[in-house]
């Protein structure tokens, strides 16, 4: 059982040795830096123990950017390996590990935290609430996600990476064909992060249902709140399936059960069935909040209210329902018979209809608008054509009969990168440019942002467009090399060069953050974009209690109306009352650590140690049950001071009246 000690650290590969050294140096650097600046106490009391939704959101986003870097490095390594035929840069095993971690990290540890982070920052502000429904649970969600992400990330230096693809299909992912512990990391780390995500989903559903400010009925909610709500509903409906699937995988791998192993009567494709029962809704969990982001940005920078609000809501509801009944299109080639494949072809193609409705609504929102070409708007504009390429090829793949041709080729890989990158990554960039001032009190530089935009968009198309043609020519995915005679070389080279441009775009983004932190103008108002929704009706960066006086709403684009009618922008001394706030807590962080440690032991199949760590988890739950902390109140004077400080600024539309 378990692992031999000499296999604990992965040795013998110069790339991994380099990473190990880099990781150690980085950690030493961080510890030394924090100690030198005497920031430990600040880190603990302001960030690690925080239950403030805005700070938790920012921590999600920082983790997402870090994971984007890690996943991007994996992608670049893959592109380098396939840039020339018969390259010997990576061996087959290393390539397997890298495409596996690339997929898992980009979907679960980059896209998810980015979007959940943005939801955290924006949704409570948009609905005029002071926090989420369960602030401490929110912190727990983050630390569980973070614990899972860190556990997954150490796999490539300690014990070995999972190497069966991000889908980890059986029988390959079973103990028989993957005897190492790499795939244990997959089963355990994703489980921990998944529990965190499920809790987030519950938190946001309750928050949006119960904590909207006065007058904001469901059909007056901003579109991003709507899409976040529906995405949370899908999280609750889909993530338990993944929880079970991963648990069954763990039983198969660790305890010799026969769910997916062929011996003992198990069914390998049952794993595929469960994985995609979760996996397809997961795609919509990602893309729906992104649709909401585009809706907000296009409406703001077209100076128009969103076109076809009701049809937008209806189409996300239809997408949410249909997303649950299309999963088989990921494995038509299993051969489940014509009836199954036909039904799932129809449901799959039907999803294109509500998605098309949304595209037209965005176009009509821009029609006759006074469009302002900010960076956020540029990303939203680039999204439309790129995403349509992804959508149309999706309909091609959705036809069961035709799929036999495309299945497992680079055509498929190009398709889903054309949906996920414009559908999620562009949206995340758009959202960061748009809401950055709300989070930090300064805007990102627009000029450097242009570099970021053009490099990234051109690089993205140059990387993935050739893969459509490679796929149609028969190049399979997940193959670490190809022959000279295949004739694939030129397009693979174009794709590799494209990925370099893409990476330069990301570097420009990082530089933009650095530059803006150092040089950007701090004297901005609460509303730098002349925007329409409630998150702009308060200070930038937002004060801990969000709103001194909860706003009242009687329609869409409430802040726009407030500005037009000059109503509700002022605050008077008599309107300020003390505000109840939840206390910070170290428990979520400790629970995240306990889960991470227990998970680590479980990965290595050290069951006694894992059980001891699990007792720590139960102790944490019991402690929480007996915790009767009632929070604290911010006194009136403090609120008065904070409010007058940001409201009495030149150019601010909000006013402070004594």
């Amino acid at each position, binding site marked *: 059982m378990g692992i031999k000690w000499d296999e604990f650290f992965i040795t013998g590969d110069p790339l991994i040795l380099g990473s190990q050294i880099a990781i150690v140096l980085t950690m030493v650097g961080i510890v030394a830096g924090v100690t030198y600046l005497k920031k430990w106490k600040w880190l603990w009391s302001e960030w690690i123990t925080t239950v403030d939704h805005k700070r938790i959101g920012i921590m999600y986003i920082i983790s997402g950017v870090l994971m984007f870097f890690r996943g991007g490095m994996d992608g670049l390594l893959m592109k380098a390996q396939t840039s020339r035929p018969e390259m010997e840069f990576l061996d087959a095993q290393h390539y397997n590990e890298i495409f596996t971690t690339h997929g898992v990290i980009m979907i679960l540890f980059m896209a998810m935290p980015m979007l959940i982070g943005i939801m955290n920052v924006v949704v409570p502000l948009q609905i005029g609430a002071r926090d989420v429904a369960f602030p401490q649970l929110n912190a727990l969600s983050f630390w569980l996600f973070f614990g899972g992400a860190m556990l997954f990330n150490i796999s490539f230096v300690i014990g070995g990476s999972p190497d069966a693809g991000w889908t980890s299909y059986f029988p390959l992912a079973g103990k028989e064909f993957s005897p190492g512990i790499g795939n244990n990391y997959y089963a355990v780390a994703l489980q921990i992060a998944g529990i965190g995500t499920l809790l987030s989903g519950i938190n946001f559903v*309750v928050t949006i249902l119960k904590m909207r400010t006065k007058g904001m009925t469901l059909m007056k909610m901003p579109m991003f709140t709507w899409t976040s709500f529906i995405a949370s509903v899908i999280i*609750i409906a889909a993530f*338990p*399936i993944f929880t079970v699937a991963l648990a*069954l995988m763990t039983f198969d791998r660790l305890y010799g059960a026969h769910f997916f192993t062929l011996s003992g009567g198990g*069914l390998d494709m049952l794993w595929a069935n469960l994985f995609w029962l979760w996996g397809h809704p997961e795609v919509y969990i990602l893309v729906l909040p992104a649709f909401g982001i585009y809706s907000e940005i296009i409406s703001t920078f077209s100076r128009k209210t969103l076109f076809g609000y009701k049809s937008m809501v209806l189409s996300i509801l239809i997408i949410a329902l249909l997303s649950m009944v299309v999963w088989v299109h990921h494995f038509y080639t299993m051969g489940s018979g014509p009836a199954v494949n036909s039904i799932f072809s129809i449901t799959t193609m039907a999803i294109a209809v509500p998605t098309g409705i949304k595209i037209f609504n965005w176009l009509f929102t821009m029609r006759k608008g006074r469009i302002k070409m900010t960076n956020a708007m540029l990303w939203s504009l680039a999204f439309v054509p790129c995403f349509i390429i992804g959508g149309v090829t999706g309909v091609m793949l959705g036809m069961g009969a035709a799929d036999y041709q495309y299945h497992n080729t680079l055509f498929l890989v190009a398709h889903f990168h054309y949906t996920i990158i414009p559908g999620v990554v562009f949206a995340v960039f758009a959202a960061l440019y748009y809401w950055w001032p709300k989070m930090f009190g300064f805007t990102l530089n627009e000029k450097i942002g242009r570099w970021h935009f053009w490099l990234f968009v051109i690089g993205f198309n140059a990387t993935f467009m050739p893969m459509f043609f490679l796929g149609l020519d028969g190049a399979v995915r997940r193959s670490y090399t190809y022959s000279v005679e295949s004739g694939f070389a030129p397009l693979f080279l174009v794709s590799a060069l494209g990925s370099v441009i893409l990476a330069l775009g990301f570097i420009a983004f990082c530089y933009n953050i650095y530059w803006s932190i150092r040089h950007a103008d701090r004297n901005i108002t609460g509303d730098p974009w002349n925007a329409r929704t409630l998150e702009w009706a308060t200070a930038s960066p937002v004060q801990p209690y969000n709103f001194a006086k909860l706003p009242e709403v009687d329609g869409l684009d409430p802040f726009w109306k407030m500005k037009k009618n000059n109503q509700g922008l002022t605050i008077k001394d008599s309107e300020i009352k003390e505000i109840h706030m939840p206390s910070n807590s170290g428990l979520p962080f400790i629970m995240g650590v306990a889960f991470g440690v227990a998970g680590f032991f479980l990965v290595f199949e050290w069951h006694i140690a894992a059980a001891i760590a699990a007792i720590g988890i*139960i102790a944490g739950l019991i402690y929480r049950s007996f915790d009767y902390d009632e929070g604290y109140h911010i006194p009136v004077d403090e609120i008065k001071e904070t409010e007058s400080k940001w409201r009495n600024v030149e150019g601010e539309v909000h006013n402070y009246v004594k």
Partner: protein
Amino acid sequence: MSSKIDYSLPLEYQTEQNRLNILGFWIFLGAEIVLFATLFGVYGVLYQRYAGGPTHQDIIMIKDVLIQTVLLLTSSFTMGIAIFEMRRQQLKGLIFWLVITLLLGAGFLFMEINEFIHYVHLGATMQTSAFLSSLFVLLGTHGAHVTFGIIWAIMVIIQLLRRGLTPTTARKTFIIGLYWHFLDVVWIFIFTFVYLKGMVG
């Protein structure tokens, strides 16, 4: 997060945070439905894959299962009475019926563990066949929920003894009540689609 108290409502609904928690728990139960449905689906796919090992008729002790069922049904009823007593502000009655519920739950758990031991003695383990893997994990997940529920309810009883009936303790009691009834709902489906179905064909 207002701490306003609405005295016209039962204790557990009196504060806004309580109402949030109760709704949140209902939504969590929605997730639990999906979780158990997935286990039932897996069982439904694998339930005839005996791989040469024992079948349903070889191992199921239907009399014991009926006793287990009655124990859990009765415990769900006594939990209902406990909440009824809570709404009448009867702390003693509440705790009495909670303890009865836990004893019945512990009895159920004792019989389930015996059942598992019996299976293993017959050579039916999780490693034997796909059918048994899915059986053990479905039953085991339910049993683990019952175990967790018992520990949780003990914590709540301690808090009731220490603090009496307040909006907070009432909310906690109400939520464990919901959880307990839900476990009974799951058991009804296990009883029907695992045991009875297994005995029929």
